């Protein structure tokens, strides 16, 4: 009987330091054993528990899309005990991975609709996964136009920079990148994500909005989406809670009667309105 | 608590010593420089003052396999921070009494004053502490074992 608590071993192929402060790193992991890789089929929006033996586990969103074969990307900010150990890990080390866990972005519901992606800070990981999934050639035609609004506090805090500049040049999508406070050689937009969203004002009919970011950004983004005419059923949020088991048993990550690790992390705003606002 | 009667002399105790940077550490340094012989059973942690030693460190040491702990600081009045060792003296008085009361051999936790010029005194204290703890034998009843049986019943 397979044991959901035993992590599969994965090797760290590459570590990319994403921001100037150096406390956000992206880990490129490959499975040590082929049978684990085959079993690990996932879709954008899901997360996994990265496990460092001797330190513990932490839930991190899968930043790579299933279309990127052969490796998995995880972007980790140094915050607690496990993430500090992860940031001390070097290339070639073996760490543990448990997953895929949680539900995915509503890919069927998004088909044939426009997609608006609103991201903030380093919570852009699973959003990157869904963007890469949409931009895949045979997937791109299943979705209409794609608008991305992504912001961070300072230019140094932006993650996946080279991919951002690339997306800006593409014609089959529109990308708005903003920072709260630019520095001297920041030529692009400046301003908070919600205000940029109000200024850009994408059409709301036939559009699904995916939002993921720090609680403060979500608090100000939702009213703007409401003004623009987005109905709660078509706004999807990816939430972050303290998690341990990841399989709906340890009772820690619930919002009302739903477990964020099992029934989430992606919820429609309609669902969240029915649940008590304790998150 | 099975008290292992390992009183034979070949038991080499492992002792942790918190030495205050200004006096005891310098005293230990002097003992080494002047080639005074003392048993190599002591691992040293340098602390700014004997007052900096939190009892949690001492209990943590006993739990992680040390057989005894020595805390050594400046003589009362010599403290670089004026009153560090005075506060420490009160804290250690209570800690020693409490651990002795609950059943830890009093020789396992020892406190001393060694000034920077007392290399000989430092060597003699280490010898005395090592003999005392060798008499007590290895510390088994406080040590954390990694095959701790779970109460799975």
């Amino acid at each position, binding site marked *: 009987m397979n044991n959901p608590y035993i992590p599969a071993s994965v090797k760290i192929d590459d570590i990319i330091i994403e921001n100037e402060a150096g406390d956000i790193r992206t880990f490129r992991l490959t499975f040590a054993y082929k049978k684990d890789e085959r079993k690990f089929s996932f879709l954008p929006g899901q997360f996994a528990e990265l496990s460092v033996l001797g330190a513990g586990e932490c839930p991190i969103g899968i930043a790579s899309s299933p279309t990127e074969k052969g490796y998995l990307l995880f972007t980790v900010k140094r915050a*607690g005990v496990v993430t500090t150990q992860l940031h001390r890990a070097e290339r070639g080390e073996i760490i543990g991975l448990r997953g895929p866990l949680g539900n995915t972005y509503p890919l069927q519901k998004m088909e044939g609709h426009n997609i608006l992606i609103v991201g903030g800070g380093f919570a852009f990981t699973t959003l990157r996964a869904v963007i890469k999934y949409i931009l895949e050639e045979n997937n791109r035609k299943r979705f209409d136009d794609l608008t991305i609004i992504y912001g961070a506090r300072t230019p140094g805090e932006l993650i996946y920079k080279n991919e951002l500049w690339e997306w800006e040049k593409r014609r089959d999508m529109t990308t708005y990148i903003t920072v709260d406070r630019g520095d001297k050689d920041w030529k692009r937009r400046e301003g908070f994500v919600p205000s940029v969203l109000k200024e850009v004002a994408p059409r709301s009919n036939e559009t699904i909005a995916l939002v993921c970011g720090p609680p403060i950004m979500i608090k100000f983004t939702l009213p703007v989406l409401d003004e623009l005419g987005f109905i709660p059923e078509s706004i999807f949020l990816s939430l972050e809670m303290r998690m341990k088991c990841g399989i709906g048993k340890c009772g820690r990550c619930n919002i009302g009667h739903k477990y964020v690790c099992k029934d989430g992390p992606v919820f429609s705003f309609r669902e969240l309105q029915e649940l008590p606002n304790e998150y | 608590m099975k008290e292992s009667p390992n009183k034979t002399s070949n038991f080499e105790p492992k002792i942790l010593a918190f030495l205050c940077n200004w006096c005891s550490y310098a005293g230990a340094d002097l003992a080494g420089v002047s080639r005074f012989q003392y048993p190599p059973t002591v691992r040293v942690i340098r602390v700014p003052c004997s007052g900096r030693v939190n009892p949690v460190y001492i209990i943590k040491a006993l739990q992680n396999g040390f057989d005894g702990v020595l805390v050594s600081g400046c003589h009362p009045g010599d403290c670089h921070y004026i009153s560090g060792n005075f506060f420490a003296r009160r804290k250690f008085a209570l800690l020693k009494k409490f651990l002795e009361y609950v059943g830890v051999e009093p020789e396992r936790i020892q406190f001393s004053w060694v000034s920077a010029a007392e290399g000989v005194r430092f060597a003699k204290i280490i010898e005395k502490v090592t003999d005392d703890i060798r008499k007590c034998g290895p510390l088994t009843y406080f040590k954390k074992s990694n095959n701790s049986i779970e109460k799975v019943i």
Partner: protein
Amino acid sequence: MKQAEHEIMSNVERLFADKKIDLFIGYEKGTLPLRTSPCFIDDRNTVRRLVWNSCCSNNLAVYLPRLMLHRKGKNSKRIGILCKGCDSRSVVELIKEKQVDRDCLYIIGISCSGIIDSSKILSELDGEGILSYDETSDSIVVELAEGERSFPKHEYLYESCCNCAYATPTVYDILIRTVQFAPKVAGPDPNITAFAHKTREERWRIFEEETSKCIRCYACRNACPNCYCKECFAEQTKPRWIGVTNDRSDLLFYHTMRIFHQAGRCVDCGACVRACPMNINLRLFTRVLVDEVKERFGYEPGVSIKEPPPLATFSLNDKQEFMTEPD
């Protein structure tokens, strides 16, 4: 006892009427026989809930640090609190440690003649349903299905109350003198001295056996007014001092350190002993520090606000007989 109750109620009513306090912490009737429960009164007309009898066991000072934190900055009036002798000593300790300021409190002191240990009576009744209980000046009368039984109070007191030296509160704004029945003269506790005379191995076996009953529920820590740390050493993760399991050595570590953190601060109110669901006799180990501090530094916690705590001060000629001298 009834007369003291009325005095408390009238005082609290007057305090609310004069707008001196906006919250009063007292005791209300418990839902279990021989038990009362802390209650928080915030307006005049619920003052009727307050009770006073020999089963008011909880130390109410435990709520003050978190209430102070909660009220910082808001210009709220004073907090009223009912204090027995030991509770008032806990309040003095909290004031001394800057967790509570004196002018934020309105203390109604009540001299106490010892609190009944309801588990002693209940275990004698062997789970018999108690319909109701009443109290005379020196005994508890319990009404059972088939008749009444009376229990003389001084035989069923908590150990801390048996040799309590501070039946009258050390700090108060109003003092209510109940009929004074003095507990035995405060002297060394017989079973503590009996424990002290055992051999070292025997004492350790008892210490290990008592702490091995612990299930890490932290009731002893959360019931103690002195344990107000925001993050307790037992739950720290950076660094992690002790393991989270109920491994024998972690339990020894936890209890050794939690008890030692009360050195020179513990007023021996017995709240930890009452709170422990596994009946660990914690007082057997906490009491030694209270006696040692009294004997070595001549200090008794919770008596005077101005006297500094023993470990926060020192004297040049503190005894140092325990120091190691090379022979």
